[in-house]
């Protein structure tokens, strides 16, 4: 093969001298012509920011699926209409949001209104990319402590969540009745229930133990309610919580596939009847309700000893922010839109339609009047803890260490205490 290659390249000079005798200028013209498109391409790079009208605001969020996409879109549009502006909304996948924001930050094309997942807020705020709410006059009172903590960086609020969520225990009502099991309230009851519900074609429980932040998120309620502290993850309290999850997998009451399941996969297992209980959040409710013949209910995740311990839920949900675009007129308009967007009616209607809990406790009663079955989640939210409350922008490192520990323990590579000690080295 090599020989053949050599002979074909050797063939080119043979034709070479022929074109040397022709006038050269035409060649030069052709060559210049070849370069022209490249030059045009380079020149084009300079003019990337399109001019938009002063009363059009750009919005970036991650609501790509219904019902969220339409519900949030309607709330945004209603708020914009009150202020008298139009919105240009772009929704990207949750995985690529931060990358998009970084691109926009470096090219000076940040949107006027930006949605962020709440644990990312402090990291982004620490870069000076966002405007504090007090400077813009957006009301910040009345929210739960968790939401305020998640939205605050260096003493100032940079983002707020209209509605929030957390995770709880979903269970298959007929399956529990058939096995004669009550919904568990303690860890021992959870172990027993999972054992009693396990059959050859079904696991007792499903949860997410993946090597992603989702895996960390699902471990947190057990970790926190048992007294774990994210500043020092190698503790007996943390090990106790990890033991519970590792035992469920080790004794075959949860599939080893939890190591590779996302929360959406967990929901699929539950819907398919391959798990009698699951740890998941209220955002799955619209889909679960649409499944024919699925009878489920939701309870708070068990604690080890309910007489001395309280269930601590991790706070989930998206915060809305005003990026520092440098265009003060538009920042003002964006602040007005967000103020309307976060008003009582707007919040309640979003909470009701998206199966999430309003971020202000004052609205809980009205919300439960419309969605009584959300009581378990509404209770949990009042005391829900923000992941970044203690560590702020440093949280991602600890979150990585925590899912590493979960993976080590659930895969049987290490005991719970050793797994946490090993993971502590990553911090």
């Amino acid at each position: 093969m090599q020989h053949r290659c050599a002979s074909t390249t050797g063939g080119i000079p043979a034709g070479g001298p022929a074109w040397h005798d022709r006038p050269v200028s035409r060649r030069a013209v052709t060559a210049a012509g070849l370069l022209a498109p490249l030059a045009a391409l380079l020149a084009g790079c300079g003019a990337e920011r399109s001019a938009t009208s002063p009363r059009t605001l750009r919005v970036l969020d991650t609501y790509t699926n219904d019902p969220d996409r339409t519900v949030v879109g309607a709330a945004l549009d209603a708020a914009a209409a009150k202020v008298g502006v139009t919105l240009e909304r772009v929704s990207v996948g949750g995985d690529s949001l931060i990358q998009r924001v970084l691109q926009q930050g470096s090219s000076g094309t940040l949107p006027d209104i930006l949605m962020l997942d709440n644990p990312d807020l402090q990291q982004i705020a620490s870069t000076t990319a966002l405007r504090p709410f007090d400077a813009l006059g957006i009301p910040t009172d009345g929210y739960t402590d968790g939401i305020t903590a998640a939205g605050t960086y260096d003493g100032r609020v940079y983002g707020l969540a209209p509605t929030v969520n957390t995770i709880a225990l979903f269970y298959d009502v007929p399956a529990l009745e058939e096995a004669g099991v009550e919904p568990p309230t303690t860890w021992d009851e959870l172990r027993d229930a999972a054992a009693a519900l396990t059959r050859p074609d079904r696991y007792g429980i499903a949860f997410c133990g993946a090597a992603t932040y989702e895996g960390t998120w699902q471990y947190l309620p057990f970790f926190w309610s048992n007294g774990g502290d994210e500043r020092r993850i190698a503790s007996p309290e943390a090990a106790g919580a990890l033991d519970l999850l590792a035992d469920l997998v080790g004794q075959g009451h949860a599939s080893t596939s939890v190591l590779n399941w996302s929360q959406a996969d967990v929901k699929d297992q539950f819907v398919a009847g391959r798990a009698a209980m699951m740890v998941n959040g209220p955002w799955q409710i619209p889909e679960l309700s649409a499944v024919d013949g699925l009878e489920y209910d939701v309870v708070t995740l068990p604690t080890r000893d309910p007489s001395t311990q309280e269930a601590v839920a991790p706070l989930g949900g998206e915060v809305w922010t005003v990026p520092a675009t440098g265009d003060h007129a538009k920042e003002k308009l964006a602040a007005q839109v967000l103020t309307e967007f976060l008003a009582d009616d707007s919040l309640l209607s979003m909470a009701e339609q998206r199966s999430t809990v309003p971020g202000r406790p004052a609205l809980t009663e009205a919300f439960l009047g419309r969605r009584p079955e959300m009581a378990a989640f509404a209770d949990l939210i009042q005391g829900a803890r923000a992941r970044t409350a203690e560590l702020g922008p440093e949280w991602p490192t600890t979150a990585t260490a925590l899912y590493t520990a979960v993976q080590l323990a659930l895969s049987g590579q290490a005991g719970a205490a050793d797994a946490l000690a090993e993971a502590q080295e990553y911090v």
Partner: protein
Amino acid sequence: MTTTTAPAPARTAAPPVAPRRRARKRTHRLVTTLFLGPAVLYLVLFYGYPVVQNVVMGFQHYTISTFFTGDAPWAGLDNYREVVTSPLFRTALVNTLLFTVGSIAGQFVLGLGLALFFRRRFPLSGLLRSLVLLPWLIPLIVASAVWKWLLDTDSGALNRLLVSTGLTDTGVPWLTSTSLALVAVIAVNVWIGIPFNAVILHGGLQGIPDELYEAGALDGATRWRAFRHITWPMLRPVVSVVLVLGVVYTLKVLDIILGLTGGGPANATQTLATQSYQLSFATFDFGQGAAVSNILIVISLVFAAVYLRLNRRAVDE
């Protein structure tokens, strides 16, 4: 090449025409430069700049803030120190090695087997040969999603088959056991790499003249002896190309691992490529991510250098 051949007749020409010749020579040189322009510009823009930028980034504290403030403080060797001393680095390095060696060995042996098989003509051989290309035609993300599904512990097709034939009692945790996950990932990568190896090796086999085999057969060299003394020596240059390119492709495999296991369980399938990706795009420490990918680039470069050497020797022969 043309610039060196052109002046040859000029030297023997009469002196009076020299200035004209020189002017022509200059224009000629200008044209050559202009023709080279696009290619050089392309290389500098799309290869040179990113590589230089990546090398520089490896020496900077390049984080989320850098995108907004433009500040990337010089870090010296901090990133490299941090990365190399991290407990994950050794795991990732060993996994990268196992993954590359395992994948290449599997792909090459099976690819060569298929290439030899398809040397013969038989009914439907054309159709079958094109079917071998199939893994190449499926997008990697799709392939890994389907494999993840096939290899699932409880409901995957492979485990269903194993359990129903009585080979195992319960499903094998292909992707969720720390001892099996790397093997499973390598197996999937072998499946993806077979077409490349088979096609190139098949092409190499086509270049071996039949007369050699006929002559060999007269001397009693058939089957294994023919392979050992005719096919293998004649195929050697192609083999070295396939192996070196294979190594460079395999070192940087990211999508398949992310799709199948995401580097888990418990980092059992974490390679330098996935570690670099995670540092850059999950923890957003672009400096450390760049450091890992620079280490990977150096490893690839070693193999690229080997490739160029082998290539030159092959041409010389």
